[in-house]
């Protein structure tokens, strides 16, 4: 487009509106319900190790989610969020990346972090806000983050990570730009994947992030998790377009929709998208379709807003089972061993939980550290006064009083 208005030049004399659903957007599906590759579909290029890692991660997350959901009901953690039904979408997309690709997630993507190697102990430390939590016990449970694993710490305000992903990815691209020509001079080493829900995609930050990525050609994979609900709000009260995918063309971004319950489809799409993004320096939009099988969070009760019938309809769609069947067909998995491992993992989880809940809370100084790189004078003074106050009333502040220096 080389006209000042930056539009396609295509004159018409007939008064005709473009239909509100002019795009016909298919959903890529590769894997059948019984683990078979569907007719006409091609399995992606995935090796056994990757496939097994992918599977183990999904299995682990399911078990972790089950256990922590229960722990919340027992009052052992204050809050939890499961990724029930979206394990394949998250894990398979993460598996299609390089380990140093940046992950900017919303909150329901613990599987991506697990795939990267976040340990069970690390998960537990965060969930129990103890002094070993990398986040120093400051944020609610599930707000994980790890610099080492290129997983940006979760931030509750929705959508904020979307333009941030664009900026981060632009930074990743910078060194590959030839200063003389302004063009890419090599394939980009690492990109950023940005996960968000179909609800968060209504935020203004979504618009800004995608448009800027297109204009500045930032290598971001925008991964929209359309799971049908934003807390109680169903997708048809969230948007009237054809999913989130229909927005790609408005930004001039290549787009694909995948069956989020199909690990192979997600893997294939993400792998292909990554290739385009790092080779051309461009964003890609991926919409994953899955159903949020669980509650929004432990604070939520879906029976207030959706029917048992609807839930039942999707209950059977287990993305982990579906992928497992394929692995079995491939001969890459032994069912008995798998069951045995599950028991072992359950035990490990409970053991880790019991340890983490006993680790003490962060020390008082962590209340004021990291606000700035160095405490500013006003805060340093407040801290000194607080220490004095606690020393005078140790009984009222049992968590920190004993450890004040």
């Amino acid at each position, binding site marked *: 487009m080389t006209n000042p208005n930056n539009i396609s030049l295509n004159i018409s004399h007939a008064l005709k509106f473009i239909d509100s659903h002019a795009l016909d957007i298919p959903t890529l599906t590769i894997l059948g319900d019984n683990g078979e590759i569907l007719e006409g579909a091609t399995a992606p290029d995935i090796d056994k190790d990757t496939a097994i890692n992918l599977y183990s991660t999904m299995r682990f997350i399911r078990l972790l989610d089950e256990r922590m959901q229960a722990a919340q009901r027992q009052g052992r953690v204050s809050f939890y969020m499961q990724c029930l039904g979206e394990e394949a979408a998250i894990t398979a997309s993460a598996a299609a990346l390089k380990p140093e690709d940046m992950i900017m997630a919303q909150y329901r993507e613990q599987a991506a972090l697990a795939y990267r190697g976040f340990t069970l102990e690390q998960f537990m430390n965060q969930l129990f806000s103890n002094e070993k939590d990398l986040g120093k016990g*400051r944020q609610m449970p599930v707000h994980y983050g790890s610099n080492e694993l290129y997983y940006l710490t979760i931030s509750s305000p929705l959508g904020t990570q979307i333009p941030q992903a664009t900026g981060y990815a632009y930074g990743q691209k910078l060194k590959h730009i030839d200063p003389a020509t302004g063009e890419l001079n090599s394939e980009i080493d690492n990109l950023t994947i940005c996960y968000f829900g179909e609800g968060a995609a209504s935020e203004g930050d979504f618009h800004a992030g995608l448009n800027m990525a297109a204009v500045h050609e930032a290598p971001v994979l925008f991964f929209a998790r359309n799971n049908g609900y934003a807390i109680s709000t169903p997708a048809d009260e969230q948007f009237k377009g054809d999913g989130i995918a229909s927005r790609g063309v408005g930004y001039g971004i290549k787009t694909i929709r995948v069956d989020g319950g199909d690990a192979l489809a997600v893997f294939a799409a993400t792998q292909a998208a990554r290739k385009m993004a790092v080779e051309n320096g461009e964003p890609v939009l991926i919409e994953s379709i899955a159903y949020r099988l669980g509650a929004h969070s432990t604070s939520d009760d879906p029976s207030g807003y959706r029917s048992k019938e609807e839930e039942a309809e999707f209950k059977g769609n287990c993305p982990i089972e579906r992928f497992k069947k394929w692995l079995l067909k491939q001969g890459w998995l032994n069912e008995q061993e798998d069951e045995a491992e599950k028991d072992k993992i359950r035990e490990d989880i409970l053991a880790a939980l019991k340890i983490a809940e006993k680790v003490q809370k962060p020390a008082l100084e962590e209340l004021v550290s990291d606000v700035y790189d160095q405490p500013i004078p006003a805060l340093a003074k407040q801290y000194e006064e607080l220490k004095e106050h606690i020393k005078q009333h140790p009984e009222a502040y049992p968590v920190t009083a004993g450890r004040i220096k």
Partner: protein
Amino acid sequence: MAKMNMLHAINSALDITMAENNQACIFGEDVGHFGGVFRATSGLQEKYGKHRVFNTPLTEQGILGFANGLAAFGAPALAEIQFADYIFPAFDQIVNESAKFRYRSGNEFDVGNLTIRTPYGGGIAGGLYHSQSPEAYFAHTPGLKLVVPRNPHQAKGLLRACIKDDNPVIFFEPKRLYRASIGDVPEEDYTIEIGKAEVVKEGSDVTLLAWGAQMEIIEQAAEKAQEAGVSCEIIDLRSILPWDVDTIAKSVIKTGRLIISHEAPITNGFGAEIAATIQEACFLHLESPIMRVCGLDTPYPLALEKEYVPDALKVFAAIKKSVEF
């Protein structure tokens, strides 16, 4: 009279509003069929229809943009922001638009029909993003009114007054008290005047000033002080904008001492404005410096919330410091 918790009181105020004006609309994230994540709008969609009580897409700037437009049209626009921590994407629509709508147009247009409700404050293990008290961010904005109730009775009467008021108002609801605070509330309609502080308990030695959920804390501190022989006058500011300088000044002229307590970080919190104004208004009457017992200058923490908050012990320590000055 009925026993109600604060959520019921708010629901009742909304119900009266919806019944009295068939253009009134309630909207926000999850406020429809579900009744809001705290259930403040429970049952209202069933009663008044999906066209008047509805979920919005997840966009706070959109909710306030929509609300400004609907209010400008002339319909009572009752917008909910799910948590006060999430009001910032709407900051431009509130501070540059709602607040300036009437002034910039020479009164050709206004959004006096706008009321924003939002749960604020800590004490629910919410960490950085489910605990903030952002009233001071708005207090620097001519054109807005800001109101905070301390109990169910106040909540209903003040919310009705906010809705009837012909200016855009933000109504901050202390979410920690939603279910915890229960009291007698008339079932019928009534209003409590905006802009007036209330002397909740008279006293002679120190004036304690707070609003919303923090009222409980200063009341506890006053009891401790009582035991120690110090008589506190307790005032609920209720309205941050406009605020009742006269009532506070009158009290401080009597007691000679003022302690302000709020949950938000101390620096440039609304306590700063109160201290700045009162030191000028009561200069010759002050027997000790005005003190502020507030949140620390950090984001709101989780594990160390207890240490962070301006609790009754800290307020009591300030009382002692003030009388011993």
